[in-house]
């Protein structure tokens, strides 16, 4: 075995080198040739089992010793100290290791007391690790940081994972097992098997069993191998796939065919989940499109006003979110909730203002409203630029928006995308109910269908116009709140959405809310399905060309208005 070969095991073996003599490494890498090993596990476990009988009595003593060892300059000795700490099974160990990983573990220069530090204005506020005593605040110059290098960091992470296995919290145990995926070796598996006996939680059990099966794929026993292939037939972990890939060319025909079949099945499943994922991405992109366009579906679709300032009304909503966050910087989540109605009011009132001052004079001349509202959009942009700055503003995302809902190893739905889909549907439902179920909605429909008849029936058409425009603008503001969580908030952000919004409304059929919803989702999904082979930009171009051609076939969109209203 050449030296060069050693490095091919990756970090596992590599970071062992300073801790053990070269010979030890050779021995160990020999029995775990195919695995990437987590060496600390081996050592700590061997020692754990061998020394457990008299561990009780010497524990506190060895804890102290390990702490002293930790203060040494040599990374080798620090590594040994970590092993020793893990073996003590002391509950103080995990916070120490975590602090060390975050470079928050120090010792005082004067008394050599090991402490965990918390950042403070005048240095660090300290807690002794030995007796949890609060040592007050010390300046940085009086402390010495216990430094770690990359090799130690690996050791630390893995040690924390092992310790977490004995945590009473099932979620912590689960994530600990996940951490070990693809990094275990025979001894690690032995430890996991021992743990399995006492494990009650089914999710953790399943995960551990999968891990053991993956390990069994390397077994020298053919029957064990075949059984493992069978149990992993539906498993989507990338580690399983890697192992099966190596087995599919096995000399043993039975194993080769079995693993080929399993791989085929897994590939099929992966293909399916990939499609599900694409649809999900498409839905979330579609939601953004629908959100941006739905306000336009009111102002353009129902009223026939080509509102080029629509994008700027979205921008106003995003800036409202920004301002509210500035007012209450400690409540990001709450500020977002408040921003929704606030943005509706801000954009809505600007909308009413635009309608009263400008658009009112231009009804029946759609192309002129286009020019006037374009002028308004320029004014709004410049106003934002002058008030805030031409630069993008940072809008924070609340913590509950980050992270992902993991359905299986091949499919994880990110929360921000999930929220945007739900938010879009909620806004749509809200708007739909207003149009279909309120008296304002009834008036809006009446005025858009036959203005003079509506007026003859006593509807104050001009008031309805203002309110309708305000409603559409307010919805644009709400869309701005959502978009502030996804993209940059800047003075020209509205420009990015205006064209897409028009496309969505025209494609769906002007004057049809359902059309807008379906068209937004269709375009979003189509875009995402084309992206893998066409690239993001080309996919967008293709969608645009498709819309241009589609309008030739159906000049009134997917769901055109029917009857007399369609003629005007």
């Amino acid at each position, binding site marked *: 075995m050449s030296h060069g070969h050693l490095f091919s095991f990756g970090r596992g073996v590599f970071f062992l080198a300073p801790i053990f003599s070269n010979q030890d490494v050779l021995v160990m890498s020999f029995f775990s040739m195919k695995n990437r090993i987590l060496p600390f596990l081996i050592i700590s476990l061997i020692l754990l089992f061998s020394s457990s009988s008299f561990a009780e009595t010497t524990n506190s003593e060895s804890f102290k010793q390990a702490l002293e060892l930790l203060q040494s300059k040599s990374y080798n000795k620090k590594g040994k100290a970590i092993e020793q700490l893990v073996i003590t099974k002391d509950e103080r160990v995990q916070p120490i290791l975590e602090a060390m990983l975050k470079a928050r573990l120090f010792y005082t220069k004067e008394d050599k007391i090991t402490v965990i530090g918390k950042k403070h204005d005048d240095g660090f506020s300290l807690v002794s690790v030995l007796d949890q005593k609060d040592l007050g605040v010390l300046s940085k110059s009086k402390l010495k940081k216990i430094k770690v290098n990359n090799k130690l960091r690996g050791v630390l992470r893995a040690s924390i994972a092992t310790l977490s296995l004995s945590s009473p919290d099932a979620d912590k145990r689960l994530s600990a097992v996940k951490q070990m995926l693809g990094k275990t070796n025979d001894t690690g598996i032995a430890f996991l098997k021992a743990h399995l006996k006492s494990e009650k939680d089914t999710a953790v059990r399943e995960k551990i069993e999968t891990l053991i099966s993956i390990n069994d794929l390397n077994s020298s026993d053919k029957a064990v191998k075949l059984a493992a292939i069978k149990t992993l037939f539906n498993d989507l972990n990338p580690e399983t796939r890697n192992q099966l890939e190596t087995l599919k060319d096995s000399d043993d025909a039975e194993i080769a065919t079995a693993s080929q079949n399993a791989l085929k099945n897994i590939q099929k499943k992966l293909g399916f989940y990939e499609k599900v994922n694409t649809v999900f991405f498409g839905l979330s992109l579609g939601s953004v499109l629908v959100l941006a366009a739905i306000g336009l579906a009111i102002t353009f679709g129902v009223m*026939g006003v*080509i509102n*080029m300032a629509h994008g700027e009304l979205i921008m106003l909503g995003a800036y409202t979110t920004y301002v509210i966050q500035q007012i209450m910087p400690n409540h990001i989540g709450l500020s977002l909730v408040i921003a929704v109605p606030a943005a509706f009011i801000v954009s809505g009132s600007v909308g009413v203002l635009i309608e009263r001052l*400008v658009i009112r*004079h*231009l009804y029946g001349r*759609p*192309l*002129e*409203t*286009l*020019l*006037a509202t*374009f*002028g*308004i*959009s*320029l*004014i709004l*942009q*410049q*106003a934002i*630029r*002058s008030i805030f700055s031409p630069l993008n503003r940072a809008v924070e995302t609340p913590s509950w928006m980050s992270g992902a809902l993991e359905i299986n190893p091949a499919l994880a739905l990110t929360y921000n995308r999930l929220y945007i889909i739900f938010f879009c549907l909620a806004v749509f439902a809200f708007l739909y109910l207003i149009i279909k179920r309120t008296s304002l909605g009834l008036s809006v429909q009446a005025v858009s269908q036959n203005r003079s008849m509506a007026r003859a029936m006593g509807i104050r058409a001009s008031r309805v116009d203002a309110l309708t425009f305000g409603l559409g603008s307010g919805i644009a503001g709400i869309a701005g709140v959502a978009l502030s969580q996804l993209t940059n908030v800047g003075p020209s952000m509205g*420009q990015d959405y205006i*064209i897409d919004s*028009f*496309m969505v409304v*025209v494609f769906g059929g002007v004057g049809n809310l359902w059309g807008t919803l379906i068209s937004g989702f269709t375009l979003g999904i189509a875009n995402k399905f084309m992206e893998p082979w066409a690239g993001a*930009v*080309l996919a*967008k*171009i293709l969608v*645009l*060309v498709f*819309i*241009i*051609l589609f*309008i*030739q*076939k159906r*000049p*009134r969109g997917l769901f055109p208005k029917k009857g007399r209203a369609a003629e005007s």
Partner: protein
Amino acid sequence: MMSLLKGDRGGQIFLVLLTVLAVLIPIFNLIIPEGSAFHVSTYTVTLLGKYLAFALLALSVDLVWGYMGILSLGHGAFFALGGYAMGMYLMLQIGDRGVYGNPDLPDFMVFLNWEEIPWFWHGFDNFWFAMIMVALVPGLLAFIFGALAFRSRVTGVYLSIITQALTYALLLAFFRNEMGFGGNNGLTDFKDILGFSLQSDNTRIALFIASAIALALGYLSCRAIVVSRLGRVAVAIRDSEDRVRFIGYRVDRVKLAIFTFSAVLAGVAGALYVPQVGIINPGEFSPLRSIELVVWVAIGGRTTLYGAVLGAFIVNYSKTYLTGVAPETWLFALGALFVFVTLYLPNGIVGLLKRKGGKA
């Protein structure tokens, strides 16, 4: 020619002014020495030349919008395509004087590690071939686009929006490096045209005069269309498309002919613009740009042709002036101007002048 301008007082004045400008500016620039109060700097000449190209573009928009009721929000695309055709010719004239000194490939292709020039660049080293392309490429695009759109009777707002989609799609496409048009940076660093250096005063003057002649010819040809039967049918289509169709005219063909001609005009304007400003990039395709030029026409006053020219000059001059003096106020001023003109001057500045003239 005189019969074309009969009853077109504005047009007569415009052509006289244009001639005076085309004669005086070269004299002021070349003959009157620097330092004299009457000397016109080369910078100003180029600026005026640029305005002339914009005026030609505005003319092409007025022809389809004012006389046929098609509000194209994609005329910038035809302008840019003409510009790119010219840019490709100028690019190949650089030869081995580029940064990388490659005699066959323009700099950006060397930069992208391309082995040879793409097929669609062949022939652009010939000036006349490039000039044919300046007219042909925008014309062909307008023809195909128009043939589809007009036959399926896409009108009004819908047509405006798909023309916008067209220019937006082209914007995205030209941003791609793979397209072979220099991507984000476009085409620039031009050295000379027909062997004359683009930096020299004489070339600048020549380009200025060429722009003036093109604008005059463009004006006359638009005028010729407008007073012809074709033009009158176009106006009828604008006022009531269905009736014209019921009478028996092929509405789609009339529209297609004028739309295509207008696109060619826009392409020529682009070709004149590029050597004077020295760059063409995908920004010219941006939908905003197209809307802006519609606004020139609206401000000048549509359905007069010379109003479009006036609008192009006024808006662009104030843009140059304001962005120099107070860049903050430019967008405020432009925005306010749009709102004001559409609300109170539906016929633009020309309409205002006519009303004043009528009263006096």
